[in-house]
């Protein structure tokens, strides 16, 4: 029973997301439209299952919600910061810098999420990852204090992602790094 359900719904989160997406795009709650949404949401994950490189396991919905809110807040704040820095004429010059950060997470999905978060926040761009994923190099638009930036980056993004994708507590390996 459980195995059959697993075969029918290989990625339950993807199923829910697809059904919701369809209903948001075509917001009519007639029987035919809802049936089409459910049908697509069940068939598409089965068809694309061989395309997903590694299985994704996501835990702790509250950590996800908090991370999304934190990233949204950071995007707004650093947008304002970068805009002010561009328009400013006098004062101290900008301090662009490459920063290397040692990483504790290894899950490819977690690393992909970290890369997206880093680059979507204005002012930091994910440049390259070491071959064994042990360190990453970022370019920072205006770097004030490197040690503080690295600590902040690890506690704000890497810690929650380790909890979500790898199920490790934020107080394990992370303490030693800071």
């Amino acid at each position, binding site marked *: 029973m459980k195995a059959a359900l697993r075969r029918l719904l290989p990625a339950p989160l993807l199923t829910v997301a697809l059904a919701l*997406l369809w209903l*948001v*795009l075509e*917001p009519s709650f007639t029987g035919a439209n809802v049936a089409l949404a459910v049908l697509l949401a069940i068939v598409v994950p089965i068809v694309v299952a061989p395309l997903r490189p590694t299985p994704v396991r996501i835990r702790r919905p509250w950590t996800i919600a908090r991370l999304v809110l934190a990233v949204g807040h950071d*995007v*707004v704040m650093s*947008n304002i910061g*970068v*805009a002010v820095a*561009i*328009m400013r004429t006098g004062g101290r010059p*900008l301090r*662009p810098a*490459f920063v*290397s950060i040692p990483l504790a997470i290894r899950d490819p999905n977690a690393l992909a999420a970290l*890369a*997206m978060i*880093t*680059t*979507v*926040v*204005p*002012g930091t*761009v*994910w*440049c*390259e*990852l*070491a*071959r*064994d994923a*042990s*360190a*990453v*190099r970022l*370019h920072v*638009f205006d770097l004030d204090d490197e040690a503080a930036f690295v600590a902040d980056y690890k506690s704000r993004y890497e810690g929650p992602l380790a909890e979500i994708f790898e199920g490790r507590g934020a107080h394990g390996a992370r303490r030693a790094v800071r």
Partner: protein
Amino acid sequence: MNAAPSLVMETIVGLLVIASGILSFVGAIGLLRLPTFFQRMHPPALASTLATWAAALATIAYFSAIGSRLALYPWLIVVLAAITAPITTSLLARAALFRVRAAGGDAPPPIVTES
């Protein structure tokens, strides 16, 4: 359909759209003013994040007001921009590092792994 939106709603939509335009324009100024490529990599993020959010929010507010039901579909643009913009920027950053190193320019060497 086509109920007239209130003046307050129209003012909010107008302010959001202007904010989006200004952010985008500042991004272009950054693209022109900053001296090196690695610095110029950052300003386009203004257009693809907060400017897109503001424009999508304005679209959602306006079409919800005239259609008298919540029109959430412009949020899809925000999701699309959030997924695609980092891929382009990050690919370009790697390409730039590669090309600057190949030309013997001023770029940090590849990360050496300890293990």
